[in-house]
């Protein structure tokens, strides 16, 4: 399997994840790699069975791929630490994967500040994973600021979901 095929597989897997995930999942790879929205049409089994502990589906649904933050904060609360500790255990057991930690902000701030705030949140999640023994070489971070909310409603219950760091798993592409 060449690199391009692998990328496509990951894109397809994430697109599928987005369809399966009622919270909307994470579809940023489409834009990031210049693929159009049509990539979601590719059928693939790469997501795997959530009952398979080494599958991406298992990571997303059982381990939990995201943590949430208070308004204008990047401090990890107890729930977030537990989730990240679980991610670290899974990554230790599945060394074939690398991760991209995406930091996101809610819509209640200015665009530039939110990019910086998302970077801080992604870094907080990354540092915790590193403290749990995951090599920094396996982790990349990016901030989407307020550009990619998962919930669109103009209310606190949606903003709570949008202030997040999402761990996106892929196979050896972080390099």
């Amino acid at each position, binding site marked *: 399997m060449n690199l391009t095929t692998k990328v496509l597989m990951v894109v397809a897997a994430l697109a599928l994840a987005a369809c399966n995930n009622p919270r909307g999942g994470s579809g940023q790879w489409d834009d*990031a790699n210049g693929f159009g929205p049509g990539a979601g049409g590719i059928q693939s089994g790469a997501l795997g069975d959530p009952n398979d502990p080494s599958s991406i589906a298992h990571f997303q649904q059982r381990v939990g791929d995201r943590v949430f933050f208070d308004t204008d904060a990047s401090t990890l609360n107890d729930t977030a630490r537990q989730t990240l500790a679980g991610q670290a255990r899974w990554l230790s057991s599945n060394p074939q994967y690398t991760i991209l930690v995406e930091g996101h902000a809610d819509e209640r701030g*200015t*665009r*530039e500040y939110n*990019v910086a705030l998302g*970077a*801080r949140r992604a870094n*907080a999640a990354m540092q915790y994973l590193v403290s749990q023994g995951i090599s920094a070489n396996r982790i990349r971070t990016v901030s989407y600021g307020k*550009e990619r909310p998962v919930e669109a409603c*103009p209310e606190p219950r949606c903003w709570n979901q949008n202030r997040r760091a999402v761990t996106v798993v892929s196979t050896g592409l972080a390099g």
Partner: protein
Amino acid sequence: MTDISMPPALRVPVMARLILALTAGLALMLGAAAAFAQSSGPLRIEITEGVIEPMPFAVPAFVAENSAGQQFSDQLSRVIAANLSNTGLFREIPASAHIARITSFDAPVQYSDWRAINAQALITGAVSVQGNRMSVKFRLFDIVSGRQMGDGLQFQGSTDAWRRMAHKVSDAVYSRITGEGGYFDSRVVFVAESGPRENRVKRLAVMDQDGANVEYLTDGRALVIAPRFSPTGDRILYTSYETGTPRIYLMDMGNMRRQVVGDQPGTMTFAPRFSPDGGSMVYSLSVGGTTDLFRLNLSNGQRTQLTNAPSIATAPSFSPDGNRVVFESDRSGTSQLYVMPANGGEARRISFGQGRYGTPVWSPRGDLIAFTKSHQGRFHIGVMRSDGSEERLLTASFLDEGPTWAPNGRVIMFTRETAGGDPALWSVDISGRNLRRIPTPGPASDPAWSPLRQ
């Protein structure tokens, strides 16, 4: 494209009534500022809600001096009327109310006919077309005092640029009457949005300040944010997620070629803005969760770190003399505005009101700094003097952000988003008057005003 056929106009004295409506708007702005200047002690913040009586004016269809000019005679006067009316300082008297008919550009003006309909200013014009070249002339009359105001002017150019000629006439009229620089012959670069909020497609676009002539600069495959014009309007800086990581791109508006600038592997770069000489940019660089400000010389690539703090510093903007940079930082715990020397050094906090402050932008006049403020769940566009005094909030809504200055420093455009609605571009003048939505083909955000075109 501009040929001035006669010596530059001298501003001639006008009678009190003419001055009245005109300067009333400006006096209101200055008066408001003066009122704040007198108060010392704690900051006093107020949303200005002045109302003035706009000056009535008439702009009959321009006289077509040949048959090819006929198609433009009405269009030119319509664009001029819209420009002036949209300032809120002027009110057009419609052609249906006119008594006199302007059939010759050089025939004497019958002042009594215009006084009878209460016009205080009259703009007459003529247009002729030869092939794809056109010539546009205009004169401005002070109806109250019964005299021409300044000399007539003539503009020549391509018929494709007919709107620009209407904007040039509008700028000349506006400048003569208000004593301020014009801003109609300018463009706005912005982000055109489409698609669902969770997977928004964002394209760079550019248009005339009145929303005409929209052109798209990117295809929407990559997320783009916050474009900024160079001081001569020939280049833009913007941030794109094309590679998956936010990076700054420099685009040449002439040939649409672009290049990555300021990139450093393992970092995110964003929030760029040109220096007043166009030779360098200031921007934010994030690494390890910390965001600092840097300056990059765009010709030799030399990089200077301007801030070094374990916090966020972003949204930098140069003073028009290039000596200082205003920016936003949360080093105190919440986002506030700071001013520092343009090569770094000690930063002085200038915002002390309640709430969070962001996206400061220095006025092209140097007198004011516009900003976004959020407080108690509301967002505002405001202005303060560059030392932080005389803060005034101009707007309030669910989400107002990202001010940009008109070239004359009298009008501010910004992004407004209503709760659950799409973002749109709005403008307001610095007195807080004349809040208007700018027409765009769809949802739009992140406007940046160009300088006045040459």
